[in-house]
């Protein structure tokens, strides 16, 4: 076994803050695994990490990439361009070389890739990855393991902590046969001991970051964080139907909930899934349902019932490209208006949007709290990019965050009314005795305070107000909105959901070059916080950045809402629907378009 440390060698060592490494191959090559290993390693090394993955919509196979940005300091986006490109195939090279920045390193499998002869913009490093992997593993493996060979190369180039990597291999593969773990190490070692310094004159080291006393970091993707947030929030029941990219949440809930005494049901369809979840909640077990794209559309009637009957419920929408079947494996933020208004009738409910992977945990937990407290359906909006992206973040403090579910079947007093006009509805689930022996009804018909149907026009107006007023009360109780950067000035960049990272990075860069710019990410979409009007007024322009269409009138979905509410002509819109996350330069251009840089030279 080779030594786990790099021998002193004459090659230059370069200290870097962060590196964007794009791994391009086919989906069955295990490049997601390398990405996952790098992400976990970064998480354990007090480095920041963010990953970005594309998976083909085909069942198996097809080009696929995994991108890791790791480094010291806060990593906010997956990166506009790559410092390193690892290309396994000619198509990987052809499709992704344009993403490599000038002077960047192209690491390629010389058994499959032939770069153009005239290519001088990049550092070209060819390694016969396929042949050497087969050789290392004894020739019978048909190139399986070349992802680990490549990881060995990267470990060498970036002076990664090999002992920690080996520990991760052991956790991942140790449960399988010894052969598997041995082959993993063999392939890795072959890559690690490859004399890369013959072809690459540099090594890279991440700048040392002071290891704080803060909490341990954990590394996971957004769907995992969201699932754990639901569990921390006290959800033990739910139902769903498979659809990308929601499915991994239902899979994890199905597997996790039994140990907590709960159950998750794979229902026959989306309508059954939402109905079953509502049934759990009505029975006093706060439940979750969720889906993506078409599945959310199918749930809308039942969600209207939950608003009308005032049933607590958490609804997760991992957005993808629409309309219809749309772009099932691409990112888009085009379900915002549906989340707010998607059911028929005036149907107020709560809509929250997660900013990043860490926030998927916190927002899911908060959704449970709001659903319970206000007896209302709460939407959690995430998206394709957050679903599969891996990030490291501080381990949450469960001592303060964990909510143990309770079933409230205490006796109710004689005057108990499920839809009391004087207070927020708190249902008596079945099993509760009501003094006087008159039991409550829950219904989707307009009803009186006892839950019995009422077509009385005044009662309809009163009940409508009751359902609206509790949402307005939430707005009054929201924490103050936090503006990052300048709190007054040229442009306030407003976003919601996963655009948080690219916007934050853009604003940092713009401020670094002297612009007075702020960033506000709105987590509470419905109701909106009450303090936005004053914040907007302190900026010359408000630029709302969204991954959705500019619509018939030139404004994205949130921009349209904000303009409608505040009648502020300074509110502008920056939209795109190319199925990809925002690049920093795209947002910078958007800012430039509405508020040119004073020196006129960009």
């Amino acid at each position: 076994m080779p030594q786990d440390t790099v021998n002193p060698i004459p090659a230059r060592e370069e200290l870097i803050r962060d590196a964007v490494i794009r791994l391009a191959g086919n989906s069955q090559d295990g490049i997601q695994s390398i990405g996952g290993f790098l992400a976990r390693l970064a998480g354990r090394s007090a480095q920041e990490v963010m990953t970005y993955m594309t998976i083909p919509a085909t069942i198996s196979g097809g080009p696929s990439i995994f991108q890791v940005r790791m480094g010291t300091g806060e990593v906010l986006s997956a990166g506009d361009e790559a410092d390193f490109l690892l290309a396994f195939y000619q198509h990987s090279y052809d499709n992704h070389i344009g993403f490599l920045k000038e002077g960047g390193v192209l690491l390629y499998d010389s058994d499959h890739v032939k770069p153009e002869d005239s290519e001088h913009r990049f550092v070209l490093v060819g390694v016969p990855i396929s042949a050497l992997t087969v050789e290392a593993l004894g020739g019978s493996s048909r190139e399986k393991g070349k992802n680990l060979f490549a990881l060995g190369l990267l470990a060498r180039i970036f002076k990664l902590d090999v002992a920690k990597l080996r520990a991760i291999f052991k956790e991942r593969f140790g449960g399988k046969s010894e052969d598997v773990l041995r082959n993993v190490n063999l392939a890795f070692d072959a890559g690690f001991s490859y004399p890369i310094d013959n072809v690459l004159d540099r090594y890279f080291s991440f700048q040392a970051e002071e290891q704080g006393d803060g909490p341990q970091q954990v590394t996971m993707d957004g769907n995992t964080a969201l699932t754990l947030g639901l569990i921390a929030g006290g959800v033990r029941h739910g139902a769903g139907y498979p659809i990308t990219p929601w499915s991994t949440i239902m899979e994890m809930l199905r597997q996790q909930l039994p140990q907590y005494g709960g159950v998750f049901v794979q229902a026959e369809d989306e309508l059954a899934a939402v109905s079953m979840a509502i049934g759990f909640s009505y029975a006093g077990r706060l439940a979750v349902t969720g889906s993506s794209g078409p599945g959310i559309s199918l749930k809308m009637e039942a969600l209207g019932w939950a608003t009308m009957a005032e049933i607590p419920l958490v609804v997760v929408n991992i957005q993808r490209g629409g309309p219809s079947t749309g772009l099932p494996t691409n990112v888009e933020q085009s379900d915002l208006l549906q989340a707010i208004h998607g059911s028929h009738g005036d149907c107020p409910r709560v809509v929250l949007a997660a900013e990043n992977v860490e926030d998927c945990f916190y927002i899911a937990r908060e959704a449970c709290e709001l659903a319970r407290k206000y007896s209302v359906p709460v939407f959690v909006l995430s998206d394709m990019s957050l679903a599969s992206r891996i990030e490291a973040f501080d381990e949450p403090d469960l001592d303060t965050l964990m909510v143990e579910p309770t079933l409230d079947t205490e006796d109710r007093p004689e005057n108990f009314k499920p839809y009391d006009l004087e207070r927020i509805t708190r249902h008596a689930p079945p099993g509760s005795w009501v003094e006087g022996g008159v039991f409550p009804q829950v219904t989707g018909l307009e009803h009186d305070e006892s839950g019995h149907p009422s077509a009385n026009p005044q009662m309809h107006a009163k009940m409508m107000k009751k359902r609206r007023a509790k949402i307005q009360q939430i707005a009054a109780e929201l924490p103050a909105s936090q503006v990052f950067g300048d709190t007054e000035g040229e442009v306030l960049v407003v976003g919601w959901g996963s655009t948080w990272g690219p916007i934050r990075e853009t604003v940092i860069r713009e401020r670094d070059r002297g612009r007075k710019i702020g960033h506000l990410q709105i987590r509470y979409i419905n109701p909106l916080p009450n303090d936005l009007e004053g914040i907007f007024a302190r900026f010359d322009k408000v630029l709302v950045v969204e991954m959705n269409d500019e619509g018939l009138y030139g404004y994205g979905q949130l921009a349209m809402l904000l303009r409608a509410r505040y009648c502020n002509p300074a509110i502008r819109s920056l939209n795109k629907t190319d199925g990809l996350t925002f690049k920093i330069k795209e947002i910078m251009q958007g800012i430039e378009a509405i508020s040119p840089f004073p020196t006129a030279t960009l």
Partner: protein
Amino acid sequence: MSTASPTPPKAERGVLTKKGLQADHPTWCPGCGDFAVLAAYYKTLEKLDLPQQNIVTLAGIGCSSRFPYFVNTHGGHFIHGRSLPFASGVSLGRDDLHVFVFGGDGDGFSIGGNHLDHAGRKNFRMTYVIMDNFVYGLTKKQTSPTSPQGFKSKTDPWGVFDRPTNPMRKLLSSGATFVARTHATQIKHMMEMYERAAKHDGFSVIEVLSECVEFNKGAFDAGNPRKGGAFEIIDEAVHDVTDMAAALALAEEPWPGKFGVYYQSVEPTKNKLESDLVQATREKVGHRSDKELLSKTFASMR
């Protein structure tokens, strides 16, 4: 419905009476078969004498689905066609409850037809009563999935073309573990079917022929001796209720067919299977607290 779990002592809450079970006065048309269905439900509940607070009466949409408002138990009036998944959540979430679902032929065989197949297959512990009148009554006489060919409705004024659903064949093929058929004019038989369904540990479903006097008058006279018809009860000394092939053969008999229990079998309920899974899993994780379990999951992601 639940027979597996202990229910709280009911003595202190008193004995169930018809008066105690009545709620709003039914809004059905005078003479509607649904009145009898409701009356038989009261009587069955009185007889079963379950703790009142643990009875749940649920429904979808339709004339018959107004049912919960007329019964003084915990009740829910859900959306069209989805009462079964809604009730499944209630049943699976709470093993201590006795879940009864009422609905019509539109709810059960048309808009909610798919749910019937899966509720049956998964064998949720509950009782489902389909009040079949062969017509859409609430919306005033459109064709229903059980309307016979030739029936003149507002959507088929020249007579229905489409072949009707065979309710018993559909219920049997769903995988329901208790399938019975009765007639709203035969109170005693209806009560017997309810009681047996309620005591069945699994998904029990009953088709009740319940006449719509407004839009389909006389439709079920052939099954009513008082109207010159024949109410032929299945002789269980001859018909083996565990024999699916025999049950399917009964389902193919010409109108008005036979009444009684077509099929009954003992299969583990979804409720039991999930609850066993929980027990086994809790055992495996050493009955750790929720916080310890979640902390462990986070620790594995360090």
